[in-house]
């Protein structure tokens, strides 16, 4: 991806935080010990989830409004848009209301919700009764590792502006709610192959940053 684009965006954000008195600034680079590579996140609380059996979500939120903003969602069962919206709303609220150091599992209706927070980004999965919670927790971790491996220092903006890559990585890793490939090397290889087929390598991201709102 276009590194410069990312840095620009990130610096812009940090400047902005400073202007606002740095209220959320400190949060921005905390909590990354879990990962070998540092995963830098913006200060926006954001959530994601991906569901092993049932669905996957990804959302993020402005911290002051306690309402998640969805960044990525993936559903493995067919649901109506209304149901999806309701699930997203309920689960986001529940997860955000959790105190720190609480356990990573929740019961919601007949689903088990597994979530994990990376800096200010949350990943959630909804599982069915027989699914393994701990392993799903590691599934989320492995996905973050895969993102990190692909993007370098992955941050929320990577996921926002390169959402398609985030989806492609997820498709390589999980299909229909089941783990397809757990090897980091294999996923990396697939992504590499797919990127090598891109006609003009950076056009895509460029296009996206370039004139999304730029055309009048």
């Amino acid at each position: 991806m276009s590194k410069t684009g990312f840095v620009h965006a990130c610096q812009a954000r940090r400047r902005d935080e400073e202007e606002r008195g740095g209220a959320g600034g400190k949060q921005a680079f905390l909590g990354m010990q879990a990962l070998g590579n540092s995963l830098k996140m913006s200060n926006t609380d954001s959530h994601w989830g991906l569901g092993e059996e049932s669905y996957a979500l990804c959302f993020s939120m402005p911290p002051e409004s306690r309402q998640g903003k969805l960044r990525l969602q993936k559903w493995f069962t067919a649901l109506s848009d209304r149901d999806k919206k309701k699930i997203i709303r309920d689960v986001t609220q529940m997860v955000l209301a959790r105190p720190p150091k609480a356990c990573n599992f929740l019961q919601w209706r007949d689903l088990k919700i597994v979530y994990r927070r990376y800096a200010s980004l949350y990943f959630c999965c909804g599982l069915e009764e027989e699914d393994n919670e701990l392993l799903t927790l590691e599934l989320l971790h492995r996905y973050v590792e895969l993102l990190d491996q692909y993007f370098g220092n992955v941050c929320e903006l990577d996921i926002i502006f390169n959402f398609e890559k985030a989806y492609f990585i997820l498709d390589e890793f999980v299909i229909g709610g089941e783990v397809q490939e757990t090897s980091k090397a294999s996923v990396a290889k697939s992504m590499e192959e797919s990127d090598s087929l891109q006609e003009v390598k950076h056009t895509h991201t460029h296009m996206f940053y370039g004139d999304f709102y730029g055309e009048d």
Partner: protein
Amino acid sequence: MLSNAPVYKRSVKNIKDVYISHINGKSKEAEIKRINKELANIRSKFKGDKALDGYSKKKYVCKLLFIFLLGHDIDFGHMEAVNLLSSNKYTEKQIGYLFISVLVNSNSELIRLINNAIKNDLSSRNPTFMCLALHCIANVGSREMAEAFAGEIPRILVAGDTMDSVKQSAALCLLRLYKTSPDLVLMGEWTSRVVHLLNDQHMGVVTAAISLITCLSQKNPDEFKTCVSLAVSRLSRIVSSASTDLQDYTYYFVPAPWLSCKLLRLLQCYPPPEDGAVKGRLVECLETILNKAQEPPKSKKVQHSNAKNAILFEAISLIIHYDSEPNLLVRACNQLGQFLQHRETNLRYLALESMCTLASSEFSHEAVKTHIETVINALKTERDVSVRQRAADLLYAMCDRSNAKQIVAEMLSYLETADYSIREEMVLKVAILAEKYAVDYSWYVDTILNLIRIAGDYVSEEVWYRVIQIVINRDDVQGYAAKTVFEALQAPACHENMVKVGGYILGEFGNLIAGDPRSSPLVQFNLLHSKFHLCSVPTRALLLSAYIKFINLFPETKSTIQEVLRSDSQIRNSDVELQQRAVEYLKLSSIASTDVLATVLEEMPPFPERESSILAKLKKKKGPGAVSVNELEEGKREGELNGGGERGGDNSGIAASNASTPSPSADLLGLRTGPPVTAAAPSAGSLLVDVFSEAGVNDDGFLSSAPPSVVSEDTAPPLPESNELLNKFVCKNNGVLFENQLLQIGIKSEYRQNLGRMYLFYGNKTSVQFVTFTTTVTCPGELQSHILHIYTCKHMFILAYTCYDKLNVQTKPVEPLIEGGAQVQQVINIECLSDFCEAPLLNIKFRYGGALQNLTLKLPVTINKFFQPTEMASHDFFQRWKQLSQPQQEAQKIFKANHAMDTEVLKAKLLGLGMALLENVDPNPENFVCAGVIQTKAQQVGSLLRLEPNAQAQMYRLTLRSSKDTVSKRLCELLAEQF
């Protein structure tokens, strides 16, 4: 359009602006404005005359996706995305597929176009394209896709030359299709080859394939039996491998955790292996896994321990599933016991959860019980509410006679500080345990009263109804209950539910403690009355009923109570219900003789014993999965133990009262105004009618001490008019089945052969919504040889099947909520297995403004609905008529006409009956003859009918002959009501 440097710079600023405003939520309007502008722009590009090149199309489709992910609805661009699929540029194709995966519904009309593109990509032999197509199928997973590809994908999966990555995608894609449309994925030669993928060298292929195999073996265990030994040997190889053997499949020093867990999960589809060698190897594996838990960790990272423990928990699940190795079960239990005190919250949570299932195994139940102190401690000290919830669940699961008192006491004390979110459930659990393991009933009464004292707000009606049912049914506890409740009421502030229980119990059994001067009748009355003004209307109504009972129990309180009833605040109360009660009770107490009073206000008869309504409530609350069948049965058994009385003894018509009057006060005593007491009411009722007709009070027997059937949420008996309603539908299939002030039920039905389908339309006539609207179809008497309710609950849908010996009725669920003025539809499928007489019952329950409405109707399914008309000539008719000449084959009735004897109307009715109306058969043209065959699954019953009207006498003679006596009789009964 193509970006260049200046634009790029400008746009970064733009993105920044938008993004910041986006996350701040400050200028939401500005954001929406910009998005709309962008959408309009994209729309105009798509609609423009100039054909867009692939690159632009991709760009705009991608923008649409981006906008969708920002949380805006997208309603166009689908066609452009589909166009991208046929591009031969990889990125364009990829974005097209992504858009479809994220935004296309499985029922979209575009599916056919998409399928075409997928078909091309699948046959392209380009692995990258094939994977894209397979991912798309797996993501959308619609039935149309299953129809198109369910045959193709297995071939790709087992073909020798398929690349590994394609195999992986194909396996999981097939799994998704199998889950959506199992009927379309046909087993075949490929199935055996799929099993052998377990031996594949590529770990990724095994990981993917095993999910498919697990799902397939759940449905076809025999066909996939061979996978057990393969899985065991694969597992054993992984478990015994060193942590570095599997290279990239080792996750934080744990070899292939995902694969191991999936293997263990697959084994849970089967019973323990029969082959001794395989079993030995498996037990060895399980032991190794248990041993590894004791080894020092190879890494301090949480990922390492999580992966390791994930396998451990899966192994424990398998051990619990086998439930045959006491040794392993106890080891598993000890391991979980260690986890109970682990510093990781996640592990404590999971240990509590797993122990819940262990508690139900006979081998480990005792071992689980040894951890009771730890669990109680967890309940008290855990900081996380979801962990405390699990602890409460486990206490509930490990409870038995030996520790019930301790556990109930702990749960009660926890209730005082419990989180609001789980209080109601806790209350139900305490109430159930107290009832289930009550050895002496004074303990039970104490517990429930404590429950009301501690968490009165969360004590639902079911709980306090139940304590009253039990007290009334067991005379050894009545005195104690009266005494305890009297003491409890002395607290300066007590919960309204306590007042209700107190009012009821003292009203019934106050005499048992009246001997003590400290609880003399007047003291009791004053105590109750001191709470009166603090209570809501329904409770006051109940108290008034208790007062009138006092007059009967203690004549010396009569004047005091009459004084109270006479006071303006009662007799002129603005609430109609209270005012009416005050007036009527006052009148009753002054007019009726002591004998009449004693009869009317007699002690309540024992309740017919029924399944604990609390258990049903808990079940409803947690979703059907939560309470095991075992538990339900146990509940029933215990219920019988506690109660005695016969099931469904005498539910008199009073239960229907809730349905006919939308009064908000549910009345325990069955003392309510309004509905007439049906013939089933005991004699006291009719006696009263006399009293009141003399006194000039115009109310039909409102005070009968009819058995209290309103107590629990059990099904009401059918409405008195339900037979009439049923008769309305003998000759027609559509119309309004029932109507009152609240609800209208319309019906449409169609029948073919022995099958029928009925559409019920429930219309809410009020402007207020009906909540918890549920309908159940049951069958009375002879139909009910066995009733089977299968509940599958996924995403809150409940599907109920009812299966009868004679009628097979399948209902689809209705929405639990009907808005004011709205109508919902329910479909009922009916299969007639053999001939029958009784109509199935349709029970409808809902809450309207808080009051439970419960009504039961007869579903208009009568045997004649399954008639197949048979045309025949005169000669044939009489020949058959003669063949059916045995006396029991004929049923005859002579009856007076209820309607005008119009020939055309009669014809229409007979045709509506479903038989063929035969012209020119009977020598007398006034008479009607009909012929038809009743189609049931078991047999066909030919029937002949002859109707002879006598216009002068306004009488009919109806004769029916059929090959089965019960059919003739039933048809005759049904038809006699029609003319």
